[in-house]
């Protein structure tokens, strides 16, 4: 490479020429997923005060995500923080949620599992747990849809390929818990498909909380393994 070419590449704006739109979107997805994997598989190994290490990769993922929205000129409305399409999104979610709930009930009946809608968190009122589930679902759905799904659409466009990639990523982030991997893949397909038709994070977060409640209340507890994922799946605390 000649010195002239080198100095051209060094200029800040020229760096943007090096990588295409799709590659950049793929890099963003990989970066966010790697942060979550680091938190799940490495940082969560830490004990006591060192558990704060989990906040570092998660914080970096949020910094990247928010900066990416700003640099790409995405508005809150684009990302799904809106209410005008709430009922459309809720309508699209209703049928798949009912079907999934029936399937979960059928699995519980087939496995001889006692169905208990109060067992999600024994020391916390169900309403509080549902609200906490909504908050946790909101964070997950934001990262999964507003970033991963939108970047997947840059690479593969709207439709099944990008929906399946989002679902596979969501399921992969729940390894090595086999029951959760299956459940989150199914949920991931539903939520990613609905988001592509009616992007609304609030409706998805409500759905996330309700579906978690249904899954915890119906599927055999040993199979769910206390909803543990990552390295903590193998531990007792």
């Amino acid at each position, binding site marked *: 490479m000649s010195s002239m070419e080198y100095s051209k590449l060094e200029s*800040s*704006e*020229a*760096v*943007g*020429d*090096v*990588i295409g*739109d799709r590659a*950049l979107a793929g*890099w*963003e997805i990989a*970066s966010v997923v*790697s*942060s979550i994997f*680091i938190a799940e598989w*490495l*940082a969560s*190994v*830490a*004990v*006591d005060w*060192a558990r704060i*290490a989990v906040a*570092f*990769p998660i914080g*970096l993922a949020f*910094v*990247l995500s928010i*900066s*990416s929205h700003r*640099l*790409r*000129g995405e508005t809150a409305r684009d990302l799904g923080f809106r209410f005008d399409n709430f009922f459309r999104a809720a309508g699209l979610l209703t049928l798949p949620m009912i079907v999934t709930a029936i399937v979960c009930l059928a699995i519980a009946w087939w496995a001889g599992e006692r169905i208990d809608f109060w067992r999600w968190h024994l020391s916390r009122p169900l309403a509080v747990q549902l609200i906490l589930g909504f908050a946790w679902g909101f964070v997950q759905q934001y990262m999964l849809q507003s970033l991963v799904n939108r970047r997947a659409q840059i690479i593969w466009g709207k439709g099944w390929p990008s929906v399946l990639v989002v679902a596979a990523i969501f399921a992969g982030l729940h390894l090595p818990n086999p029951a959760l991997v299956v459940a989150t893949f199914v949920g991931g397909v539903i939520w990613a498909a609905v988001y592509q038709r009616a992007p609304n994070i609030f409706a998805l977060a409500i759905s996330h909380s309700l579906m978690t409640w249904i899954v915890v209340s119906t599927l055999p507890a040993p199979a769910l393994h206390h909803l543990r994922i990552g390295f903590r799946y193998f531990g007792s*605390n």
Partner: protein
Amino acid sequence: MSNKPRSKLIHLLISKSIAEAVLVAAIAVGFYFVTSNPDLRGVLDVANTETVNGWAVDEARPWTRVEVQLFIDNEFVADKTAAEFRPDVHRARRADDDWHGFVFATPPLPAGEHEARVYALLPNATGTRRTLQLIEKPLRFRIEPEPTRLGFPSEKDGGR
């Protein structure tokens, strides 16, 4: 997306990757120091049909006694504190006093080859987790089959 924000995003991605690589390296180094004691010294001297013995010292805290566990063929056998009389360790200046030896009685074992391993038990600062650190190298020993009255190995002992 124009070039300027694109290059900013690329720089951000590179910076994030570097920060995460540093974090992973820090976790790896931290994990090593939490789960192992670089100041642990010890030797497994003897492993035979009667005894497994040696010594262990934490050189960073030579006044303490190291807790050790004996495993034979990867099965836990016994644990004890390395506090037996070993003046040779003291004379060799590996310890501040004479009391860092360990002696296990070898349990009854079937005839054949066996492997003895002794691990030091390392508790973390708060005592919530414990890890095992191998003391020196494992020792292999053989238990001969007991001769019968006719001079052949009994079936009971020579089966394996």
